[in-house]
């Protein structure tokens, strides 16, 4: 501890070299932090939660899944027999239909920019069942709760993700017309009642419209089309989410649903939401594997070499000083520690700086890392990055300075001083 000043003076001695080493560290930490950001989000999504898990019920043989809405009620109950008080029942549920359309009437002019994508669902469930939204505090969810409340008075209300709202150049309170694509000839007149919070970013592009309102629009379609139902009328249920207390409840509900005679035409399957996402990510497996096993370690290796080079130059320059310190009574181990500590301080501080800047810029300024994989629109740098950064800096610094520190330790006084004079 008494030697800290010596270490700091040495770091200050060659500011250019320290800065270059530091910049190298920052670049590496930046790249690895971004890679880990994506990986950890995917990991979290695919790691099965053992308690409070979510299950997804979809059509068994067809993708996209299109079930009749008549399934919704019974599936939401987990296929429980209404007369059986001992049947397993989900703690909460949410049914999704999908409405894909455009704010542009002319099909030739439709593009990603004017795309409109909405979940057809009960608005209240957006708060209690949407992944990640269900984790928000009441305070964080306040604007969403207000929007949900408003939808009770505005049946044709729509909640729009902030990014999509910006792309539409619309504001809360504005009215929009969307032209159906998967529901042909269904054009909806909607009123924007609110937006999703900025976090979680994955809903930045999505919207929510009311299931009741949508069903009434289907009825209206039938009335205005010679009492002929819309061709999609019996296929409006995409999937049903169930919240289950634990693995056991999941197994029981699975059994109830799979053995029920109600869900045979079409038949359905049930899986935990993480395996669902896992399957989705299968396509990305090579990319993810590459990121995890090649890129991050390669970055760290390169940085170790950079640090090793810088530190060994500085150790060579200081041969004489280390010899003097030995003459004064410094032990080899102490000299080794001084060299290691120098590298460690550079690694940890620049590692932290880089992680903190990445965290601030990506989460604060950019609102997440735009890396389009699966249905994650944006990735937030986890708070954990604030310690990964310094930890990576420390690791590479130790790896890179080990060799030079050893050679400093073994400086032989008699070799340095016993020259013929």
């Amino acid at each position: 501890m008494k030697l800290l000043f010596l270490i700091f003076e040495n770091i200050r001695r060659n500011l250019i070299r320290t800065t270059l080493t530091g910049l190298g560290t920052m670049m590496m930490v930046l790249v690895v932090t971004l890679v880990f950001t994506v990986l950890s989000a995917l990991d979290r999504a695919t790691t099965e939660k053992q308690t409070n898990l979510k299950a997804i019920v979809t059509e068994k043989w067809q993708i996209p899944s299109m079930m009749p809405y008549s399934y919704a009620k019974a599936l939401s109950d987990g296929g429980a027999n209404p007369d059986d008080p001992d049947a397993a029942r989900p703690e909460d549920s949410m049914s999704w239909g999908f409405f894909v359309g455009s704010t542009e009437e002319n099909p030739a002019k439709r593009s990603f920019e004017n795309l409109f994508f909405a979940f057809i669902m009960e608005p209240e469930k957006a708060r209690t069942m949407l992944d990640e939204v269900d984790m928000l505090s009441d305070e964080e969810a306040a604007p969403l709760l207000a929007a949900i409340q408003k939808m009770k008075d505005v049946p044709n209300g729509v909640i729009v993700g902030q990014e999509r709202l910006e792309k539409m150049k619309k504001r809360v309170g504005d009215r929009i017309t969307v032209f159906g694509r998967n529901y042909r000839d269904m054009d909806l007149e909607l009123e924007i009642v609110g937006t999703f919070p900025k976090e979680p970013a994955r809903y930045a592009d999505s919207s929510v419209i009311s299931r009741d309102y949508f069903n009434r629009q289907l009825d209206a379609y039938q009335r205005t089309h010679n009492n002929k139902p819309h061709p999609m009328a019996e296929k409006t249920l995409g999937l049903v989410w169930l919240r289950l207390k634990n693995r056991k409840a999941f197994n029981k509900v699975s059994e109830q649903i799979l053995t029920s005679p109600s869900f045979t035409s079409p038949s359905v399957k049930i899986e935990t939401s993480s395996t669902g996402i896992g399957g989705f990510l299968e396509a990305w497996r090579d990319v993810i594997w590459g990121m995890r096993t090649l890129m991050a370690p390669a970055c760290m290796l390169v940085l170790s070499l950079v640090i090793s080079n810088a530190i060994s130059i500085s150790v060579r320059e200081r041969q004489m000083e280390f010899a003097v310190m030995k003459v004064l009574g410094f032990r080899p181990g102490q000299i080794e520690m001084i060299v290691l500590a120098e590298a460690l301080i550079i690694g940890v501080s620049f590692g932290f700086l880089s992680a903190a800047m990445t965290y601030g810029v990506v989460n604060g300024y950019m609102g997440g890392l735009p890396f389009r994989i699966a249905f994650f629109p944006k990735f937030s740098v986890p708070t954990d990055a604030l310690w990964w950064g310094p930890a990576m800096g420390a690791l590479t610094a130790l790896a890179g300075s080990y060799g030079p520190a050893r050679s400093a330790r073994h400086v032989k006084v008699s070799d340095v001083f016993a020259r013929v004079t």
Partner: protein
Amino acid sequence: MPNPVCVDVRDVHKSFKRGIETVDVLNGLNLQVQENEFVSLMGPSGSGKTTLLNLIAGLDRPTSGEVIVQGERVSSMTETQLAAWRTRSVGFVFQFYNLLSVLTAYRNVELPLLLLPLSAAERKKQVMTALDIVGLSDRVNHRPGQLSGGQQQRVGIARAIVTDPALLVADEPTGALDAKSADDILDLLGELRKSLKKTIIIVTHDPRAAARADREIHLDKGQLVDAR
């Protein structure tokens, strides 16, 4: 009655391996230096002066023979023991001062004290005393680059005496200095010997420096030749 023996070198051999050949530098050398004695060591280049000094200061070990300083058998200590022993028992003054260029005079002098169990206040007192003795109390916060050669050597001497060792060894302490500064440094060493009762061994090429000593000894072909 002569003073007790401070440095006792007994039948010391030292050889270095250079590639496949072995160079014998010291051949059965004997030397006694009394406490509070001032000895100068002269000899041609490559005669082994530095090698002998390193053995006495515990920086290297003899191939055979014994080195005893103040009753302690330096030649058979482990490296760790030697390191601790050096801090307390011997001050080393270098020809090229060898101060740490990034540290102030104060920090340079303090360096050996950091190895001892002393409080900051105790260290400060000892550093200031040492700098006062060498006459540099007013250069405490200067770095080596801001000091003249003579001043740097004074800092070097302050660093050597700051732990109050009984023995001072100096390898050509005036070798890099002009005549005036060299005289001042020799005066200072004489003063240290007189008032602080140090035992001093210097290696020198300069006959005038050697003349200051109680005793001049010459090293030739690995053997000592008493000159005076």
